[in-house]
């Protein structure tokens, strides 16, 4: 075999219960190459990685067909431990670190450098003393490789999320024989600046000769870092491209296999400045950890789609959560001139304010309940709908619930086996539609929707955005959409408010220049324009 590749996977087939999930997949990674693996949810990326790491699930379901070569050697990886011996490392999406241990201890866990002492000579090598100094110098070297300037003696528990990711990487590269590192959606939990740092150090690692396999959803990151890109769709490789030969829209197209048209014609989106106010926020302060809101004044106009944008951690997420009463909130909120009681979700729902949370699986859904119960539950509790009443005794009206759920499933095009299916079994996009259906069942005047497309594949994203646009146009519903993806806000909103450091930086039209958006997101807009004046 050719030894110039670190990893070669040839003609991989995998069948799960008569269901073909991988069909003749080939992938080649050279030393020092960053190879991106793209694909929608369910395209077969995780199965491919499970095969590479010899996860038990593969062998329990009848193994796979095809060959895996590491450095030109045909290998048969039977367990993750063997994969580790072969020099394959994985950086997990969720951190596998022990918070109470120091960075060094985490990096060196189970691979400690030790020296003999009196007792260990008598009772065996498991009682050897740790050689702290050499462990720390090893850890330091790994951290330096990544350009991380924190003490190797610090405890992991107090570190910011971004640093934890780096420690995971440091642990992998500390293994001397490491040849191939797999990054499984490493930037999913990071802020943009942290993600930038991570991508930089990936490049640095690659320059030392380590091959990197990079799994992600974010196309711009791929364009930024990868040398080669393999796109999977429905278990098949649809294309392997050099970065220079492609662009974001082509990648997106290859990934979903259909053309994406996002932008709603601009003539349909007038500025909503002149409409009357439906809701006014005065000096809103929300103490939501990590997304603190520090005094926001904002009016929401009737019938508009208001976008709330900004960088992660600046407080944009806190606004909707604060208004709904999920985190301690101060300030004043007026709905059509009437002052609302804060910190009380019940008041808000009963005043016609709907909310779709950014934490879909945590707050948005009852994962072990049926779709229909998820859809009607809030309306039942708050508005006494969908109930039979016999004096003080109430019973759920299952017929009505089912009819309503089926109507919603059809209207929103939820792909499911029926209204009885548990929401846990749905894909991210369909779960989001159930969340929206629940909010719509309340027939709200204002709908707050946070990060509506987070963790959803490209095809479903468009459906969700189209749906929001349709609700706004056809039902005249006022929508306040919070999102980290500026492109998405600019594609459907009338106005976009940018939040920076917990305060309103400014309101822009979706057709304003990229420069203005960039400056506002960075909190430099006013400074810049003042200087200009």
């Amino acid at each position: 075999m050719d030894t110039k590749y670190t990893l070669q996977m040839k003609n991989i087939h995998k069948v799960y219960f008569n269901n073909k999930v991988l069909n003749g997949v080939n992938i080649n990674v050279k030393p020092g190459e960053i190879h991106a693996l793209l694909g929608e949810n369910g395209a077969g990326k995780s199965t491919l990685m499970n095969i590479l790491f010899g996860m038990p699930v593969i062998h329990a379901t009848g193994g796979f067909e095809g060959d895996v070569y590491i450095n030109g050697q045909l290998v048969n990886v039977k367990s993750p431990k063997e994969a580790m011996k072969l020099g394959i490392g994985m950086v997990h999406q969720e951190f596998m670190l022990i918070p109470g241990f120091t960075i060094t201890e985490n990096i060196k866990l189970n691979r400690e450098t030790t020296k003999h002492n009196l007792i260990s000579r008598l009772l065996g090598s498991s009682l050897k003393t740790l050689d702290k100094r050499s462990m720390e110098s090893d850890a330091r070297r790994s951290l330096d490789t990544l350009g991380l300037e924190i003490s190797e003696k610090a405890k992991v528990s107090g570190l910011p999320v971004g640093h934890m990711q780096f420690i995971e990487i440091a642990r992998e590269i500390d293994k001397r024989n490491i040849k191939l590192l797999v990054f499984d959606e490493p930037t999913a939990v990071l802020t943009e600046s942290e993600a930038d740092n991570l991508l930089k150090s990936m490049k640095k690692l690659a320059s030392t000769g380590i091959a990197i396999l990079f799994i992600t959803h974010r196309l711009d990151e791929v364009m930024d870092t990868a040398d080669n890109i393999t796109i999977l769709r429905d278990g098949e490789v649809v294309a392997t491209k050099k970065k220079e030969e492609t662009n974001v829209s082509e990648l997106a197209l290859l990934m979903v296999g259909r053309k994406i048209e996002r932008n709603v014609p601009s003539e349909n989106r007038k500025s909503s400045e002149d409409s009357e106010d439906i809701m006014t926020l005065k000096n809103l302060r929300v103490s939501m950890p990590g997304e603190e809101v520090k005094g926001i004044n904002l009016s929401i106009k009737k019938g508009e789609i208001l976008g709330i944008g900004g960088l992660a951690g600046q407080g944009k997420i806190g606004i909707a959560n604060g208004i709904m009463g999920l985190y301690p909130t101060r300030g004043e909120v007026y709905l059509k001139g009437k002052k609302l009681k804060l910190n009380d979700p019940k008041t808000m729902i009963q005043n016609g304010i709907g909310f779709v949370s950014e934490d879909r699986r945590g707050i948005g859904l009852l994962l072990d309940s049926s779709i229909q119960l998820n859809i009607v539950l809030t309306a039942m509790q708050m508005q006494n709908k969908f109930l039979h009443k016999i004096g003080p005794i109430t019973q759920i009206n299952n017929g009505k619930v089912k009819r309503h759920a089926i109507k919603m499933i059809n209207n929103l095009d939820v792909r499911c086996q029926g209204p009885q299916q548990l929401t846990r079994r749905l894909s991210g996009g369909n779960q989001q539609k159930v969340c929206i259906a629940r909010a719509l069942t309340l027939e709200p005047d204002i709908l707050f929707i946070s990060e509506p497309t987070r963790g959803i594949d490209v095809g479903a994203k468009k459906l969700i955005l189209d749906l929001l646009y349709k609700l706004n146009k056809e039902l005249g519903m006022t929508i306040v959409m919070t999102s980290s993806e500026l492109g998405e806000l600019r594609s459907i909103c009338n106005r976009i408010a940018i939040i920076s450091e917990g305060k309103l930086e400014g309101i822009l039209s979706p057709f304003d220049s990229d420069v203005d958006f960039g400056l506002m997101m960075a909190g430099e807009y006013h400074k810049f324009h003042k200087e200009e004046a």
Partner: protein
Amino acid sequence: MDRSIRELMNHLGLPRIIIILFFISICIMAVFLGLPTDMLTNQVLVRIGMNGVLVLAMVPAILSGTGPNFGLPLGVICGLLGTLISIEMNLTGFPGFFAAIIISIPFAVIVGWVYGLLLNKVKGSEMMIATYTGFSVVFLMSIGWIIMPFKSPEMVWPIGKGLRVTISLGERFAEVLNKLWHIDAIIPGFGELKIPTGLLVFFFILCTIVWLFLRSKSGLALKTAGDNPKFAIASGINVDNNRIIGTVLSTVLGAIGIIVYTQSYGFIQLYQAPLMVAFPAVAAILIGGASAQKAHVSHVILGVFLFQGLLTIALPVASSIMSEGNISEALRMIVQNGIILYALTKVIGGE
């Protein structure tokens, strides 16, 4: 056919299938060892009825998010108190039985409410706190039973102070439910079948009431609060209040449960007797397919049948295999605690 069997197996979950197979094999052994099957069947039926309500008490607690109610002794003590007051009022038969229930309910509501407030303060470690709250209250009441001013000569020690350890209900309401609409039939080839209809009907009525409650607006709010507290808050549901409602209901059912139990048993036992009362009940519902977060009324019925069935039949089977003298009590403990242990390791439950 093949598919429907597989679906049923998935639905039940492996632990339940193992227990059911174990139960069936023990039943077969009992027949082969020539044990009196009619008597065993009758015993199983009685024990399902007498323990059922105590198991049912687990449902609202689990669903409201406080986990299996290891604090069941609290409800049991309220039930015992109701029974004692009913005897003190010199009531007999059905009036005595229902008076005991009606008197115990206000106690159970107040105790359950306070206990609910406590559980809201210790979110995340309810099971451990509940177990020790139950233990502490049993010991506190050991003092209580001595100093309470009951006068009825049936209940107090002839000399000295305080209530007796065991009080007979023979003259009061022993077996009132068991004897209600009692069916007694001789079946050729099987023997004498005795069905305690009233007892089973009473159990099934309470099951139906709980089932209906869980389909009501407040029942669904309670389930939501237990299933996903954050979702509940975002839907305007008061999670803490619903946890208290669940605890109160569980405590009330515990009180009713022990009254049903004692009327069938024929005695009430005070002092340390209620100490371990929660464990068989928790084990039964877990064996029935519930988990620490999910429970249905169907889990109660299946669980109490399997647990009490195993207990009743495994013992004579075991002691007829090993017939050395006094081993049966030791065997009873091993079998009972073995099943409880097995159930607790399977908290995951079926679907």
